[in-house]
């Protein structure tokens, strides 16, 4: 037994971090939030060049055949740099859905295109977790109609959309007529989410039924938790850095115990989350009977701790934390979005209770 990252995993994580540190800074996030769409294309190209979209996809389809833990390490770095590019839906949830039953036609057709970066895949499972009024999909004569909101990775003209209706995963080729995609303006400008309106669109069923839906949601939740972990780590790191530069009363503010203890509390809360996340990610591929429960706990717990870290680290910056000048709010807001999508903490904890047979 070994509960630690392997050398290969460390190298993967370091190389992604290096790539991101060379290509992404606060000005880029700012320009992206002002609507410079060229940025999305550029970042996407770099991510494809590194082979990241194929991380989970098996080698026969041109991917690298790694697991959810590796994907989570990448998500952590994407969270750390607040990367504006498709990841969780396109590179993790969609491949998980398509590969749930080995060797099906849809997997053979689409996985190589996702791995090579020729297409992006959008995932619309919000309603499978819980429906709001005026949303939801219906199937009539093998055609889908209705609205799905907060779909993930729909910003770069996705070629396929994966969603669920009547306890089946379905795939929609957006070259068919009747699909309208528009971005939903949320607090988080670094990671667009979209609304999709289907008007009697042809579908294909991805084999696997409810179990495939659950597994796809599970990995999405683990990956969102990983994104929160990275974003929170960055906020603590930046807060500590700032506290060692900023002086008041002729001292760096990081020498005041009031400030030190805020930072220590954040670190003490966040560090066990890393262990929880590693275990949850590992369980998705290796411990079937714990996969559902651990994805719930990882999502809910990181959402809670992430929110605390986002608040307290902003406070460490004092007034500057509240301004746009340092841009810490990009992470504050990214954590805020991750907390709510695919189930907020209360919803996910309720599922965790049900999984253990506590709620009928």
């Amino acid at each position, binding site marked *: 037994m070994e509960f630690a990252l392997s050398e290969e995993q460390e190298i993967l994580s370091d190389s992604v971090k290096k790539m991101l540190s060379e290509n992404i800074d606060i000005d880029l996030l700012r320009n992206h939030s002002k609507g410079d769409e060229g940025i999305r294309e550029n970042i996407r190209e770099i991510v494809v060049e590194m082979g990241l979209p194929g991380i989970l996809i098996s080698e026969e389809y041109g991917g690298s055949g790694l697991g959810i833990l590796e994907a989570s390490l990448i998500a952590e770095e994407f969270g750390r740099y607040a990367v504006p590019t498709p990841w969780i839906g396109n590179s993790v949830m969609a491949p998980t859905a398509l590969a749930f039953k080995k060797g099906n036609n849809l997997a053979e057709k689409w996985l190589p295109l996702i791995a090579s970066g020729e297409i992006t895949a959008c995932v619309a499972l919000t309603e499978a977790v819980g429906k709001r009024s005026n949303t939801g999909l219906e199937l009539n004569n093998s055609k889908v109609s209705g609205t799905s909101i907060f779909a993930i990775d729909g910003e770069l003209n996705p070629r396929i959309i994966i969603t669920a209706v009547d306890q089946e995963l379905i795939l929609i080729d957006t070259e068919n007529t009747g699909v309208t995609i528009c971005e939903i303006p949320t607090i988080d400008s670094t990671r667009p989410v979209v609304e999709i309106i289907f008007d009697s669109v042809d579908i294909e069923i991805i084999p696997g039924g409810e179990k495939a839906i659950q597994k796809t949601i599970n990995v999405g939740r683990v990956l969102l938790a990983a994104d929160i972990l990275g974003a929170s780590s960055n906020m603590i790191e930046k807060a500590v850095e700032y506290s060692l530069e900023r002086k008041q009363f002729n001292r760096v503010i990081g020498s005041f115990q009031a400030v030190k203890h805020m930072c220590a509390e954040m*670190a003490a809360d966040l560090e*066990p989350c890393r262990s929880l996340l590693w275990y949850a990610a590992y369980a998705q591929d290796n411990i079937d009977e714990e996969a559902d429960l651990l994805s719930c706990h990882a999502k809910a717990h990181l959402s809670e701790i992430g929110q605390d870290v986002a608040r307290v680290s902003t406070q460490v910056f004092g007034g500057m934390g509240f301004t746009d000048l340092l841009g810490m709010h990009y992470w504050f807001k990214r954590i805020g979005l991750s907390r709510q999508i695919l189930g907020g903490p209360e919803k996910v904890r309720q599922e965790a209770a049900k999984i253990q047979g506590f709620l009928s």
Partner: protein
Amino acid sequence: MDLNAGPEYVSFRKEVTNFLSENIHMAGKARTPVRPSKQELEWQKKLIDKGYAARTIPQEYGGFGADSDVLKSRIIAEEFSQSSIPLGMANQGISMLVPTLLELGTDEQKKSWISKTISGEVIWCQGYSEPGSGSDLASLQTKAVDDGDDFVVNGQKIWTSGAQMSDMMFCLVRTEPDAPKHKGISYLLIDMKTPGIEVRPLMTMTGHAEFNEVFFTDVRVPKSQIVGKRGEGWYVANATLTHERGMLGDPNQSATRLKEIIDLMQEETFNGEKLIDNPVYLDRLMKLQARVLSMSFNSLRLLTASHKKSDAKMAKLIVKLNGCQLNHDLAGFAIDLLGELGTIYGKSNHDHGSGKWQWKFMFDLGLIIGGGTAQIQKNIISESGLGMPREPKPILEGKK
């Protein structure tokens, strides 16, 4: 990352569970500081013979002498915790003194003390804190003066758990009054029966005296009873403080407590409804379960790190702070589950076992404070873990 247990470990787990099911009736229950009963001494011996206690302590010192094996230690801890049985005796002699002697003791000291300590024959107490030296432990004033073959000790210790039933004390004393505060301390092993030692129980908020004050008046301690060199006691003690912080905030204890709480929720009703069916309580339970799991996975990380002899850094620094707070919160939740019945602390027809939870709730607050206060833990985390500076010394106006 590989949590798969090989066949060797599957059969090892079976061995442990078999042992527990066959011998559970012999297990000692008490972990509080009372002198171990004959039954507990026998149980301890059985555990050492099987390698479930004193597992990695060399055989020549009375241990089981196994190589360090992260997964086996984990399996033992898990199975004992599942059965709600203490993993052998837990006292400061075993958890703090023995590791210190193994690291820094002389051959003579190892032979004299380790075997008797792990068997429970010799019980130790810790003499560190003083009334004027709590968080600033290195300012301690109990002095030991060189006099022929002995040191002569005078002063006072506080927060000495189990002093009234201990045979020996490992104790910090000032031997070099002129040296800087960290360099004037020595680490002595003191026989509690030596004339001049007086133990006074210290009543706490729990209504019990879990701690004592110990007074020293001209207590003679042979010079051979020093661990490490004269003036190096601070560094000797720091080796054991690390062990203490590992012991306080033990995640297996939290896991056991969570299991007891789930049992409680399944048994207790309120307005005819089982507590486990109440969604508000369940939400709280799930929050606590996530924390318990996080700390338990964190301990897997620490086990792996210690096995690889690498520094677990932050994952290690946060254990005492988080673990003690978590145990306190678990006890607090159990009390809330019982509502008004949760306040019963004594004999009553309406008692649903709240006394145990109330005691834990209060005693754990003591543990949040003891063994390095939460405030001091946060200083350590921010300084050693995050690289933040020490608070500068204030300039005292009006003094020299």
